[in-house]
């Protein structure tokens, strides 16, 4: 997770008045990590397919 996202989630968590708010932020962090991973995998796959040697 990038620094800005982590700092924003951490700050909102520290200020969150309720357990439910903190829970939402905790699980949002997990989802955003998964989203980053999916983007990285899709980019890598796109790159791999664009450089497929059958095209050379």
């Amino acid at each position, binding site marked *: 997770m990038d620094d800005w996202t982590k700092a924003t989630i951490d700050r909102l968590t520290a200020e969150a008045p309720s357990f439910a*708010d903190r*829970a939402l932020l*905790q*699980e*949002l962090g997990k989802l*955003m990590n*998964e*989203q980053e991973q999916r983007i990285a995998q*899709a980019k890598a796959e796109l790159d791999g397919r664009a450089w*497929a040697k059958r095209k050379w």
Partner: protein
Amino acid sequence: MKTLIVVGHPELADSQTQAFLKAAAGDRGRRHVLTAPFDPASERQLLWQADRIILQFPLYWYNVPAILKQWLDQVFDDHLLGPAGDRLAGKELGAVVSLGRPLAEFGAGKRQGFSLDDYLRPLQGVARATRMRWLPPLAISQFAYQGPRDQAALLVAYQQYLTLPQPASFADRVNWFAAQLARQAERAQGDQATRYAQLRALLMQRQAELSDLQDNLRLIKEGGQ
């Protein structure tokens, strides 16, 4: 989507799990605590109005508690299903089941002998006979022993179980979180509201990026590369 939460618990006032779930649900579903005797006419109205019906109960001797069985026996009849037998057709039926044993003990060859799906088979049968779609159950295993991080994860999983379309894609889950963040941004004030809105914007922007990448990949694959 209208969600009806049918709570069947013989000792509700003493249940930490049920108190937690009540607070977690908030306004995400209509909570209906079963107390006998039942008025079948009003019970039918509740069921007919719901899109998703969640049975919420502790597993007692691998079964639903007596109050829930009594409700099923008395309310689920020809009047409920209507002349064509389709008054519940197309709705979803789910179960939020609290367990006194670890979920890992459930399964063939394990300590509890059978999987939770096996033990819940009669409820799946009800869903099938009434033409409702059975949702994978949400199991809550030994709530009192869970730490704060696990309980936080459970809280969100439960809220999703009440309101998220099933089965949910990754994009559905992202949209669900975006809606929660919008709600938080409305409730919060000043800088906090701004930060919730910024997180939502970033989440959606990255999802658009992911969607574009997936579209490009699909095109390449369809092109036989």
